């Protein structure tokens, strides 16, 4: 069992949780993720590692489905059934020169750890964090601290630049040399934003978030098409060359269980306890 050390709400529907998981915390690198199973009947959900401190690891997530809603009820002292990680190949960090690290919405969670490692590798680090409105912006202080420059964008103009991260990125590409870009956010945001760097031929990484089960290359659920080849995001990624990714196929596969997700949420909201199927062994 893995103990929750701290849990707080960061914005509407967005939560952070610190969990004691020494084997993850000690070895985690930028770009990697972990898999959480909240309880004995839970599914395995992949979440990006957002920070580590001693034996603890932080993840930030949006409560959008049954599992994340349940996770949001966990408080300090509660336990989670399982955590495995770090999983995935770490970000390809080296001294590129000037790099831009972009986070969209809850995807901002992944950016401080990348920005920090990029900075330590000697890069000039520019951060861009964007959200629908100012209340949905997270980790502004952390990004402020670790980046050489930080831009903020909101879709509604309530803070920073009125517009999208892609707007700011385009401006930067026009006025100076950018050597590498990371983009983490919803698939559609990564698709749109990464197109901006194509004409400038700038190496651009995106962190893909397909549906996953084991996270170790065993089931093939997370297969994505990159450069016309099938790759497993859990072991070959989750970061890939944005210009080679088939985002449409990714988004289609992300929607595979839309109906089941709705059913699971309804079940969660209408049932206080499990039972009836015989699988639970009367434990719930």
């Amino acid at each position, binding site marked *: 069992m893995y103990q929750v050390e701290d849990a707080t709400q960061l914005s509407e529907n967005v939560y952070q949780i610190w969990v004691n998981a020494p*084997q*993850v915390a000690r*070895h985690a690198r930028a770009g*990697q993720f972990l898999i959480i*199973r909240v309880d004995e*009947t*839970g*599914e*395995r959900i992949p979440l990006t590692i957002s920070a580590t401190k001693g034996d603890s690891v932080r993840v930030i997530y949006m409560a959008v489905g*049954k*599992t994340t809603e349940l996770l949001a009820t966990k408080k300090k002292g509660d336990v989670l*059934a*399982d*955590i*495995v*990680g*770090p*999983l995935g190949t770490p970000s390809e960090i080296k001294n590129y020169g000037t790099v831009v690290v972009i986070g969209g919405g809850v995807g901002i969670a992944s950016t401080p750890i990348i920005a920090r490692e990029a900075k330590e590798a000697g890069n000039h680090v520019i951060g861009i964090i964007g959200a629908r409105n100012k209340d949905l912006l997270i980790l502004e202080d952390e990004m402020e601290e670790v980046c050489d420059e930080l831009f903020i964008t909101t879709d509604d103009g309530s803070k920073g630049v009125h517009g999208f991260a892609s707007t700011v990125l385009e401006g930067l590409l026009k006025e100076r040399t950018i050597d590498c870009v990371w983009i983490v956010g919803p698939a559609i945001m990564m698709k749109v934003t990464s197109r901006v760097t194509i004409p400038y031929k700038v190496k651009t990484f995106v962190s893909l978030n397909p549906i996953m*089960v*084991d996270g*170790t*290359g*065993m*089931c*093939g*659920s997370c*297969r994505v*098409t990159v450069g016309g080849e*099938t790759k497993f995001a859990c*072991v070959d990624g989750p970061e890939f060359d944005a210009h080679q990714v088939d985002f449409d*196929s990714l988004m*289609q*596969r992300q*929607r*595979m*269980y839309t109906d*089941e*997700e709705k*059913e*699971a949420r309804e*079940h*969660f909201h209408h049932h206080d306890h*499990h*039972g*009836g*199927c*015989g*699988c*639970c062994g009367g434990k719930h």
Partner: protein
Amino acid sequence: MAKEVKDFTEVNKGLTEENAVLEALRCMSCVRPTCVKGCPVGIDIPAFIQKVAEKDFEGAAAVIKADNMLPAICGRVCPQESQCEGACILAKKEKPVAVGALERYVADWEREHGTKLPAVAEPTGKHVAVVGSGPAGLTAAAELARFGHEVTVFESLHEAGGVLTYGIPEFRLPKAIVKAEIEQVKALGVEIRLNHLVGRSVPVEELLGYDAVFLGTGAGLPYFMGIEGENLNGVYSANEFLTRVNLMHANCFPEFDTPVKRGCKVVVVGGGNVAMDAARVARRLGAAVTLVYRRREEDLPARAVEVKNAHEEGVEFLCCANPVRIVGETAVEGVECVRMEMCEVDASGRPKPTCIEGSEFTLEADVFIEAIGQGPNPLLVSMIPGLERARRGNLVVDEDGRTTVARVYAAGDAATGAATVIWAMGSAKTAAAAIDKALKEE
């Protein structure tokens, strides 16, 4: 519809005590027992059967466990017909002694009447890391623990057992039995660390710091056909489909949170035991199931009993056909196949199937499961410097399981390529003996 396709309870109910004793009495107690030679882990079969005939089930269990710590599992999933029973002297005249059913009877009897552990040697002070808790890893761990070594098993999933847990369905191998036999291995002093992916949660340098390392990482990498439409929603590898149901209990969704597409019309491609498992699981989830196999029915590599059960449970077999394209907009709507004909015998000694031009036809389907084989998971082995792999990705090992890296051994599917539970166990026993010898010579 046959009764057993509605639920996941065990299909084969096993022997009664009376039948077990009667069956044991058929054994000829051969002076040079060929059955033992046919057993990859070398159980003293005549000795345990003699004990069954005497109704000394506790004694029978002790004989089996001297060579095999997973008897209730082996009694259920071993291909006995091509091993002990195939080698039985009676097989030439009439029916062989039902060694598998007897092994299962003894193991089940012992589990219900209180288990006794085999002897464990004095601690040697040596510490061995075992990667993977499937049949190979559990067997190596049990052997090494009995030799007196301290053993730590690393398992990346949240449950131990490897393919026994995520792959083989409940109706063929109840998970309570897998758990009970894993508890027996743990009772020998073996520590199993779940949720530890070696190479990620445990750095390779740390792994290589053990006195010896045993790699039992299996063959978990699913192969895909590489045909059009493979990324449509509703296309599964058998690994994923079976993992969702066996490990994550997707058959109990939404009581359990992991979903699976049950499908109305499921097409499974492949002809091995994994294909049979996937087809039979899909039947239990309520679908009409067609199994497409490119050779003839008599060429099916699955065990005859699995094929028979699949037939009885209503799985349709479409042999001499092969999928060439998966049809659909965003989700599977059908599977386009071609007819195959058998030509001259190929390198494997089987007739080579060839497409018949212009014979395309489309099967209606909403779920498509690919069960065309697995390769060794490349993740860890690619991280260990100097570890050589053969052409198909499996580890290069000598007859004792030594890899090309000092103090690192491997067995099971990781070394031999996808095979059976018992072959994995047999090779793991050999490697464990070699590790023990090497550690004691130091």
